C-alpha cells in the first residue's frame, strides 16, 4: 500500500517522468557505448576541428586531435555514471556506518565520530578532493574512492540524527527488551526507518559526484585512459574562441544528466516527504 502509493506519486509527477526518461536514455547510451562505438574513443580517427554536421560520419564533429566527439560523449556517459554511482555507494557505506554508530551508541563514541565528521567538514570539500587525488594518482578507481571519501560527512550527520531520534522510539525499546542484539536492532529495526531521507539525498549525491568528477577532469586531474565529459571540456577550453562546440556539447551532456538526477531526486523528495510538496 505504502509502496504503491509512492510509485503512484512518482509516476504522477511530470518532473519524475521527464527525469526518469532522460536518465534511462543516458543509461542506455552508456550501456550501448561499446556497440555504438566499438573503438577506443581516444583514438584519432579523422581530421581535427570538424564542426558538428560537417561530416555525417562524425555528427558531433571532431576535437583538436581528430577524435570523434560523439564517441567521447557516449563513452563519457559510462565514466560519469560509473563514477557517480560507485562513489555514492562508497559515500553511503561510510556515512551510514559512521552515522549509525554515532547515533545508536551515543556517548564518547558519538563525540569522537561527530568530531571526526566536523573535522572533515571544515576542510573545503573540493580542495580536499584535489589533495586526495594528487596523493592517489588519478585513475577511475581512485577518483571514485576520493569522491566517496570527501562526501560522506553529510550522510553521516543525516543518519546520526535519524538514529538518535529513532533510538528512543517505542518499537526500538521494545526490541531491546526482547533481547535483540545491537546489530539486529540497528540494521533491521532502525535502519529501514532512517533510510527515506538518505534515499532522497542519494540522487543529489550522484549528481554532485558527477559534477565533481567533471571539475577534476576539467582541471586535468582525470584518468587519462578514459574519455570523460570533464576532460573533453578541459581540452576544448583551449580553443574556446574558435571551436566552442567542444566545450558546449560535453557541457550540455553533464547538465542534462545532472538535471535528470535532480529531477528524480526532487520527485523522490515529494513522494517521501509529501508535506513539503505542492499542495
Amino acid at each position, binding site marked *: 500500500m505504502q509502496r504503491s502509493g509512492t510509485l503512484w506519486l512518482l509516476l504522477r509527477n511530470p518532473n519524475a517522468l521527464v527525469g526518469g526518461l532522460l536518465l534511462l536514455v543516458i543509461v542506455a547510451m552508456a550501456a550501448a557505448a561499446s556497440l555504438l562505438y566499438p573503438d577506443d574513443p581516444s583514438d584519432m580517427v579523422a581530421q581535427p576541428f570538424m564542426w558538428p554536421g560537417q561530416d555525417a560520419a562524425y555528427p558531433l564533429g571532431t576535437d583538436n*586531435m581528430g577524435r570523434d566527439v560523439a564517441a567521447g560523449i557516449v563513452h563519457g556517459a559510462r565514466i560519469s555514471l560509473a563514477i557517480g554511482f560507485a562513489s555514492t555507494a562508497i559515500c553511503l557505506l561510510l556515512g551510514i556506518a559512521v552515522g549509525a554508530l554515532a547515533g545508536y551508541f551515543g556517548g564518547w563514541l558519538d563525540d569522537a565520530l561527530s568530531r571526526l565528521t566536523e573535522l572533515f567538514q571544515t576542510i573545503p570539500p573540493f580542495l580536499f578532493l584535489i589533495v586526495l587525488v594528487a596523493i592517489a594518482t588519478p585513475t577511475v578507481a581512485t577518483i571514485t574512492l576520493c569522491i566517496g571519501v570527501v562526501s560522506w560527512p553529510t550522510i553521516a550527520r543525516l543518519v546520526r540524527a535519524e538514529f538518535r531520534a529513532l533510538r528512543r522510539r517505542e518499537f526500538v525499546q521494545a526490541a531491546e527488551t526482547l533481547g535483540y542484539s545491537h546489530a539486529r536492532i540497528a540494521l533491521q529495526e532502525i535502519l529501514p526507518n532512517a533510510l527515506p531521507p538518505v534515499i532522497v539525498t542519494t540522487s543529489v549525491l550522484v549528481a554532485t559526484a558527477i559534477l565533481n568528477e567533471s571539475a577534476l577532469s576539467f582541471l586535468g586531474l582525470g584518468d587519462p585512459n578514459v574519455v570523460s565529459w570533464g576532460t573533453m571540456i578541459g581540452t576544448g577550453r*583551449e580553443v574556446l574562441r574558435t571551436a566552442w562546440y567542444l566545450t558546449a556539447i560535453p557541457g550540455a551532456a553533464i547538465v542534462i544528466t545532472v538535471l535528470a538526477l535532480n529531477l528524480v531526486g526532487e520527485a523522490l523528495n515529494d513522494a517521501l516527504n509529501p508535506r513539503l510538496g505542492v499542495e
Partner: protein
Amino acid sequence: MRAYLSRRIFSAMAGSMLLVPPLVARADTPKRGGTLKFLVEPEPTSLVPIADTTGANVMISAKVTEGLFNYGLDFSLRPSLATGLQTSVDGKEMTFTLRQGVKWHDGQPFTSADVAFSIETLKKYHPRGKATFANVAEIRTPDDHTVVLVMSLPAPYLINALAGQESPIIPRHIYDGSNPLANPHNNAPIGTGPFVFKDWQRGNFILLERNPDYWDQPKPYLDRIIVRTIPDAAARSVALETGEVDIGGEYLVPLSDMGRLGSLPQLGIETQGYAYSPNVHRIEFNLDNPYFKNLPVRQAVAHAINKDILLRTVWYGFGVVTTGPIHPDVARFYTADVVKYAFEPSTAEKLLDEAGFRRGEDGVRFSVMHDPLPIGLMHMQTGEYIKQALGKVGIKVTLRSQDMAGYIKRVFTDRQFDFTNGAMTNGPDPTLGVQRFYWSKNFRPGVPFSNASHFSNPDVDRLLEAAQSEIDLHKRAEDFYGFQRIVVQELPDITPIAVKLFTIYNKKVKNHTLTADGIHCNLADVYIDS
C-alpha cells in the same frame, strides 16, 4: 710565458656596432617611451634564478639582473657586463675585463668582487651551475674590473653559459653572508640591468621601470615593463589578440590556437631567439624495464611511431622531425648522419616477434605504463598518440597522469616507470644540457633530470668527457657527432621532434629578438612604434 688566443672583444665602439640589429631595417630610429606588457606563464616564483630556474623566472630575470655577455643570433659574443675576454692557449685561464662605471640599482658600484661572488654562488646552488663552473679551481680579482678564472681543465662550454638568464651576476653586498636561496631580494631584485624592479603584486603583475642610469645610454627605450600572468591558456590568446598584452614566448598559447593568432594582422610570430636553450622532445625508456631493456623492442617502438603525425597533431607544426638528442639549431654540433627509423609498423611487428614478444590471444604482446611529463597538454597528447600507435603493433600502453612532484619522484627517485616523454632543453651547450641524460656517471637516482634511462655506454662516456674539455672546436664537434651516432643506434630514448619555440608579439613592438635568447634577454633595445 703566456700566450693568448686572439679572441678578444672590445666594448664601446666595436660592441655597439656588433649590436646593430640584423633583422630590423636600419632606417628605423628607436622611439623613447611607452609601456611593454609582457606575458609569462606561470607566474615567476622568484626573479633571480639562482637555484630555481623555472622558465618564467629565467624569462624575466635578465631585464633587471644582467650577465657577463649576450649572444648574437649566430651565437657570437656581445659585451654586456664584461667587455672583453682573453683565454690562454691551453684554455685553463680565462680573463674577463669588466665594464667600468656600472652601478647597481641601489647606487653601489659594480666590481669584480660581485662577479667572483656570483660565480661562487652559482657553482654552489644553480641547477646547471655545478656543471658550468665545475672546472673553475680559483677565481682571482686582481683589480676592480678584472676577473680571472683559473681552471683545472679547459671548459670550452663555459663561454656559452654567461648570459644573464643562465648565469646572473648578483650584488655581493646584498647577498653576502646570507643564505642566497632565502634572500628577500630574490623577489625584489637589485641588478645592473636596463630595468629597475618596482613592485610585485602576486597573482597580478610585476612592474619594472626604466633605469635612467643604465650604462648603455640612450637605452633602454621603454619607460616600463609590466609583467602579467594569465592562468588560462585561452585567455592568454585573447589578451594577445586584444592588445591587453604585447609580447610573450615559449609555451604560452595553445598551439591549436596558433593558426588563428598567426593570421591576425596585428600579431607577429618569431621563431628566432630560442637557439640559446633549444628544446628536444624525447621519449625516454627505462632500460631496467624487462621489455625495454631489449634493443629490438626499442627499435620496434621507434618504427611504430609516426613522427610526422606527432609534429602535426601535437606540435601543430611548431618543430621539425629530428634525428637525435642535439637540436638542429645547435648547428655547430648537430649531425644528421645517424641511423634512421622509418615509420614501418610491419618492421616493428617483425622486430617484436623476433625478440620473442609474440601477440597473445587478445592481440597484446605486453603491457606497459607511460608517464608523460606533466607540463602543458602536449606531453599527455603525445602519450595518447603513443598509446594508439603502439596498440596497433600489439603493445598495450596505459597512461598515467600525476603532478610534477609525483612525476619527479616516480621517474627520478623511485624509478617506478616504464617509459616517459617530455621536451627538454639542450641548454646553452650540449655538455651542460645534453650530457646529463646519457652520461653513465650521471645515473643518480634522486636527482631530477639526470640519466633516468640508466643508459651506460663506455664509448658515449668517453666522447662526452672528451668534449667537456676539448678546446678545438672541430674535434669537439666530432666528439658530439660520434656521441649522436651511438645514442641513436642504442636508443635509450627516441627523439622525434626538435621543438620550435616562438615569440608572439604585437607588431608595434620592435627589436625584441636580437640575440640567441630573444625575449629572455634584457630588452634594452625594445621600443614601441605607435
